[in-house]
């Protein structure tokens, strides 16, 4: 299963470190990363991750990412890739 991790929040050091650490602990493999600083220093990052060898449940990974996001004051979402593919690709 592949999923998209999306991160939105005020730009600050350590965002990628915290999120990728949470993914590493769950044995989720990062396939691709895109990041931009949007207007007013809002940081946006999207990661494509492979969850096929994941050691925890989808629910647990979501909680761990939430916890990592909360620690550094950013919004983190984990959503299956199909939702974006179905909406934006014919």
């Amino acid at each position, binding site marked *: 299963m592949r999923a998209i991790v*999306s991160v939105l929040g005020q730009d600050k050091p350590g965002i990628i470190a915290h999120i990728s650490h949470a993914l590493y602990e769950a044995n989720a493999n990062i396939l*691709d990363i895109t990041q931009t600083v949007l207007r007013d220093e809002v940081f946006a990052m999207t990661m494509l991750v492979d969850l096929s060898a994941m050691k925890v449940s989808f629910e647990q990974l*979501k909680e761990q990412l939430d916890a990592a996001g909360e620690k550094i004051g950013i919004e983190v979402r984990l*959503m299956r890739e*199909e939702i*974006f*593919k179905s*909406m*934006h690709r014919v």
Partner: protein
Amino acid sequence: MIDQRDILKTIDMIARQNLDIRTITMGISLFDCVSDDADVCAGRVYDKITARAKNLVKTGEAIENEFGIPIVNKRISVTPISLISQGCENYVKFARAMDRAAHEMGVDFIGGYSAFVQKAATAAEVRFIDSIPQALSETGIVCSSVNVATTRAGINMDAVKRMGEVIKESAELTAAEGGMGAAKLVVFANAVEDNPFMAGAFHGTGEGDCVINVGVSGPGVVKVALESKKGQPFDEVAETIKTTAFHITRMGQLVAREAAKRLGVPFGIVDLSLAPTPAIGDSVAYILEEMGLETCGAHGTTAALALLNDAVKKGGIMATSHVGGLSGAFIPVSEDAGMIHAAETGALTLEKLEAMTCVCSVGLDMIALPGDTPADVLSAIMADEAAIGMVNTKTTAVRLIPVPGKQVGDYVDFGGLLGRAPIMPYNHNSPREFIARGGRIPAPLHAQRN
């Protein structure tokens, strides 16, 4: 990887523009429950519903969690009870069995306490219709509907007359809850068999044993998309709505397929409806206002709604393999912040709403009237709507709530998705003798298409 802008756009639609799946509705056939003993039959109804729907809510929540898209309601629709209970005497037992099963399954509503009497009613159907007020007052989440007209059969004016009284009785028996009984009762012309939306959902006779139908929503997304098109011609407006409806519906199709696969049940249809909620920013009225109307209800509203309804269908139809249900724009007054505001200020009247129902997907929906509105006035409003449905070969529905003890200027609050409505005035000239005639209004000439 998918373009980051597309990912952020989707997240923005969900997080800030109220994009959601309004409902996953499981349709369940009850034909194999038939018996001439009400206890046996109602027992089988309970068993069948709980067997088929036991994983519905859990599956809905799992999809919500993994795909990150809210699924607001999980619902059940069943074969119209009047079709399986005609050999029995006590119909309310069936409503109680439905209610108990639905509560146990954790769903939000169950629909199908329904009858089809567009041409005439059998003796059992007359008794069934008589039982509706009690059934709605003794149950919590059971919804009822009665089809009184079709383009092919004409309008059964005896049924229209009786349904005016049934609505009054349903409201009076639930007076303590603002006449909530009437909010769970829909009177249809040209009812559809695969509608996932309440209160009018039922599992039609042409359906299989069990099916998953999905209703999408997202008026907020359409409104935001139009904000960037200020002052541009209608061609541009229509294109923007079509593109947005396409995206919304693709999401509905994905969720419907996924739910059907996980539940081991065939996928039925996606209903391409723009269904508002009372939340600010989730209003169909605001879309019409975004097109340039000062307030919903102003002259021009019907044209704006016609464009919206058409563009939603054109955009959505390519995004799903099977379109069905009501598909279009809903205009339930109490469930739409913009409609509520327009009705409060007097910009939106019952007459304008009636005109709007000629071009939208359904009809006069969630309209609160004074508690002392005569039954024949309710019947006459129904007859007007049924005529619009019959002549235009479209579904029309009437969900009127004569709120006991309330007058124009008062409010009724049903809470949740049903929202809050101002009591609206009606035309006080009497249709009594018109409604007293009974009989049938013949089907229109264009019904003869063979």
